[in-house]
């Protein structure tokens, strides 16, 4: 079992009176609402939280890329990764991931991740994402090219990391006379690549083909099982190997409280509400702009949007809620991983506008009581 500490670094002061004038906290929510003085304070706290995760034994700390929104303040995950390298000693730095299709020059990603890998002594996990639809609005990029750009940028970056330069690249989307990336990554043949997925068959098959672990964010347990089963099936039937639990990871909100589930849920509830209602809401045309997926996938999105509307919004916990006493959280965490055959839990401690002291108290309990519980079971299992 691997435990990653996942963070979105949200903006916690979204004013509901301002927010209600806009369809979303993404793309159109005005940046005049961002207070940079508060922003500095937030970065300090959020980095402290991830640094603490390293100290209490998390296997990795997770950063990610989103643009022009109050949902997550990390448009450049590599800058956060760089800050974390100096503060952490053992944990991997998981960048889940760089939006490689969003760059007009994907070699910049190859360069930066190689730098981070060298600087960290080989502690980088390199996720690659296409970027959700909102990013295409924010970056002024044609979503109909997003898949093609994603696959080509991936091929280019991996080649730049693994084959001697200079070589030339003449692709559909990217052309370079000289590809000769300095520095090269420390890990050989390259930092491990992770792929977040919303479960499209094409992405699942492609990830299975390359043996890239799937990292799923806010996917309910039933769909996780479907995605993982599909991946395992591609692996065994098309690519001749059995996919193990180390190839599957997912996010879950974690909140540990000494008084158990009821007390934990009551304390967590306003922050979940803030997160869902003010930060996370994505209108369909923002989330899935025209051309971002094939027509068939869009129909599936309509179905999912209708399901979510009737069930009260996105699921932030896959399986049993990891909310409660240390023992409850530990047992459920193990059961959730076992239920879908996953090996990695990406725990999100900070949610929405949850203040630093609450986050730290929950993390401290996780470190002092859940971690020993899990490692004891690790030995016996």
């Amino acid at each position, binding site marked *: 079992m691997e435990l990653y500490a996942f963070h979105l670094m949200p903006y916690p002061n979204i004013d509901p009176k301002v927010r209600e004038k806009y369809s979303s906290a993404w793309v159109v929510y005005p940046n005049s609402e961002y207070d940079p003085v508060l922003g500095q304070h937030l970065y300090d706290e959020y980095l402290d939280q991830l640094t603490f995760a390293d100290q209490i034994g998390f296997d990795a700390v997770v950063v990610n890329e989103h643009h022009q929104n109050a949902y997550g303040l990390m448009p450049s995950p590599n800058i956060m990764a760089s800050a974390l390298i100096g503060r952490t000693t053992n944990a991997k730095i998981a960048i889940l991931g760089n939006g490689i299709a969003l760059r007009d020059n994907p070699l910049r990603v190859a360069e930066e991740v190689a730098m981070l890998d060298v600087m960290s002594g080989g502690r980088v996990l390199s996720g690659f994402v296409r970027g959700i639809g909102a990013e295409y609005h924010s970056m002024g990029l044609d979503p*109909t090219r997003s898949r093609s750009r994603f696959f080509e940028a991936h091929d280019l970056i991996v080649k730049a990391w693994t084959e001697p330069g200079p070589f030339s690249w003449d692709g559909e989307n990217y052309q370079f006379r000289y590809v000769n990336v300095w520095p090269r990554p420390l890990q050989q043949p390259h930092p491990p690549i992770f792929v977040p997925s919303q479960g499209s068959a094409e992405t699942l098959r492609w990830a299975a083909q390359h043996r890239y672990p799937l990292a799923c964010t806010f996917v309910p347990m039933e769909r996780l099982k479907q995605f993982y089963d599909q991946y395992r099936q591609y692996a065994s039937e098309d690519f001749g190997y059995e996919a193990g639990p180390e190839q599957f990871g997912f996010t879950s909100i974690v909140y540990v409280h000494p008084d158990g589930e009821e007390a934990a849920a009551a304390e967590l509830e306003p922050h979940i509400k803030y997160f869902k209602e003010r930060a996370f809401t994505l209108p369909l*045309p*923002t989330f899935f702009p*025209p051309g971002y997926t094939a*027509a068939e996938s*869009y129909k599936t999105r*309509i179905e999912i949007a209708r399901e979510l509307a009737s069930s009260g919004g996105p699921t932030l916990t896959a399986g049993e809620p990891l909310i409660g006493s240390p023992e409850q959280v530990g047992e459920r965490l193990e059961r959730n991983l076992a239920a879908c055959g996953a090996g990695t839990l990406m725990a999100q401690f900070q949610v929405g506008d949850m203040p630093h002291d609450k986050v730290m108290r929950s993390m401290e309990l996780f470190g002092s009581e859940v971690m020993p519980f899990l490692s004891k079971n690790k030995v016996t299992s």
Partner: protein
Amino acid sequence: MHEIIEVELPSQPARVQHGGEGPPLVFLHSEANTSAWSDFHDELAENFEVFAPIHPGFGGEETPDWLTDVSDLSFHYKDLLQDLNLDRPLVVGTSIGAWIAADLAIHFSALLKGVLLFGPIGLRSSEPLPDLFIMELPEVLSYLANSLDGSQVDPMTGDAELATAVWTDLATQARLMWKRNYDPRLALRAHHAQCPIMVAAGHEDRLTPSAYAKRYAELFGASFTSVDEAGHLVPLDQPAAAAALVNSFYATLEK
């Protein structure tokens, strides 16, 4: 009333709706799932042999890989005119179809008798035009025409198939105009369009201001007409008035 003919072209096969008798007229349709044979086509077919092709990547088709800009469609349609042996047809376009017609006239005006542009787009605007790609689908339709029923294409409460059809058309439109909803070369090259051109815009157009359509007419040396009680898609909102304009424009070409 009409048939569908399939024509093999170097780019890809064209699906062409065909009906009516008279001089040849090519009608280039608008966006958001509005390519089907309509009252306007029927009106046109009373006086013309109408050829109404479905643009590549529209009418339920996925965006083709070869399509990069509007000029790709001009060359696609030049091939179509030649394959169908159309002798200097009148070309009528609406919205995105009018942009294609304007570009076709820039490149191949000698092959055309005249061009009528209803609510043309593709010109750089001094003020940003509404962003159709971030709107909910019912709102998209409200910006395009008064006569379209937006509630039908609401993904949450309407018909998922219809919503997907509008969305798929918008996808190909995104390929053509996501980055820029205009072609900077259009203004530079407008004077190459040497055939007679007319621009008509709906009086209640919400997508492009009337100054925009007038500027279009000015650049192309075209006459300009405003159509009452019509939004951006004039042939949908006022099929009879739009067809009457086509007839009167054609009459001036015969003189």
